[in-house]
């Protein structure tokens, strides 16, 4: 295929994408402004835009955003430290890998969201239950990737380093860590994404504060326009955090 035709193809698909977006927003606007879709079910996009500007300029989102980010930070820190440490300890012995890896992988296949009612019972409606859920959910990808990273380093590298007289510290610093690092990073990235999702989710289901709580609160008050504004805000926050973490991962891997 010629370069020219390729460029024309690219332009055409861009046009389809833009057309899709325009049609969606157009349908949304005309549907709510002229065709009589109930304001409670679907607010007018112009109203949502005004609400969004109001939310952003008044700084009303700050307390809820702070709660959510704090929960994410604590849960992610706990699951990182425990997941990486435990993963490293398990990876040091083939026997431990054989014993624990299937157990952890099996546990990972249970939808851990089911623990939320238990955590609410143990830790209450506050941040405690959210942090516990976020930690549990993100622990598994992190520990499994750490085991995979440290546990399956090519034997040749280890033998070579040993025979050249590497100490334990040197072995860790120059052989194990560089080999395991990319795999662990992937685990950390997945862990971060699921922490964020599970914390937003548990805030939606049962909570006292946070972005998820705010959205539910507005939904129950039937303030749909403001709820849409908050949804947009939360989606943008989540997407930018996720892409920030992904870019960190890419940069660290390419070094």
């Amino acid at each position, binding site marked *: 295929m010629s370069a020219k035709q390729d460029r024309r193809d690219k332009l055409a698909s861009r046009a389809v994408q833009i057309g899709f977006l325009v049609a969606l927003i157009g349908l949304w606007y005309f549907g709510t402004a002229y065709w009589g879709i109930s304001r409670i079910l679907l607010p007018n996009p112009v109203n949502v835009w005004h609400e969004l500007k109001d939310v952003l300029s008044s700084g009303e989102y700050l307390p809820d955003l702070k709660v959510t980010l704090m929960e994410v930070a604590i849960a992610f820190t706990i699951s990182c430290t425990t997941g990486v440490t435990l993963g490293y300890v398990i990876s040091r012995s083939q026997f431990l890998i054989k014993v624990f890896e299937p157990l952890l992988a099996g546990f990972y296949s*249970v*939808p851990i*969201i*089911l623990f939320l009612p238990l955590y*609410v019972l143990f830790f209450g409606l506050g941040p405690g239950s959210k942090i516990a859920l976020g930690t549990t959910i993100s622990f598994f990808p992190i520990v499994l990737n750490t085991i995979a990273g440290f546990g399956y380093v090519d034997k040749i590298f280890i033998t070579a380093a040993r025979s050249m007289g590497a100490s334990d510290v040197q072995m860790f610093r120059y052989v194990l860590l560089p080999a395991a690092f990319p795999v662990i990073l992937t685990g950390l990235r997945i862990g971060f994404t699921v922490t964020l999702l599970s914390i937003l*989710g548990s805030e*939606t289901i049962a909570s006292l504060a946070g972005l998820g709580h705010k959205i539910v609160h507005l939904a129950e008050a039937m303030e749909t326009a403001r709820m849409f504004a908050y949804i947009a805000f939360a989606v943008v926050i989540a997407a930018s955090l996720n892409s920030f973490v992904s870019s960190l991962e890419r940069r660290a891997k390419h070094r």
Partner: protein
Amino acid sequence: MNRPLNLKREIVRRPALARLVVLAALFLLWEISARWWIDPTFLSPPSKVVAGLGELFYTRGIPRALQITFWELAVAFVISVVVGLVVGLAVGLSRFSNRSLMPIILLLYGTPQITILPLFILYFGIGPPSKIAFGVSHGIFPIIVTIVAGVQNIKPILMTAAHSMGASRWQIFRWVIFPHMIPTFFAGMRLGMTGVLLGVLLAELYVSSAGIGYFTQLFTQAFDPTKLLGLVSVLAAMAIVLNEIVRRAEVHFGRWRTD
């Protein structure tokens, strides 16, 4: 060779045995801590949970709630698979639609759908339809993405060979694309099942009038950890069985491909 019964050696040689020991130790720890250290309003020992299962099933509404949840999962899964397959094939088989629509699909897949859960309740009510819709919204995207990737991974040489031997579009679909799609299809189904489980359970826990979400909330508020743990265990077992069925199917139907 005479073998002294060396327990340590036996365990080291058989990781499966050691796994059982670890599990047993965990249950023992749970049993002991629940019996002596932790307030019984928060945690019940596993022995009590198991003994309470019978009573749980006789609680009014529980069998019905489990049935409803299972039904929601099944319907959401079937819709996700059918629609996901159709959309995935439509997007994957044409270069143009792939290029223009795939970014939109990936964008939708990447947004945290949990933030729009209240909208699903607003549009579909608090009954099963909202759970099914939310389950579909979680299950359909991994299926589409896997199917598209699968269609694109078909070696061009196979398509070219079929073309040059004069195969019609339908024949290419039936004899080249379809057999190659089977492993991908089941891989997508497995991911879809994980998504559907997550979506339906999230929606159930959020608001529910007769499903399991209603009962988890009831038991939490009544500080009845025996029944709550029993219900959660039953649901976890259901999830494991469903996941395992799909995973087995994936292994079974992916076997023929050896490369």
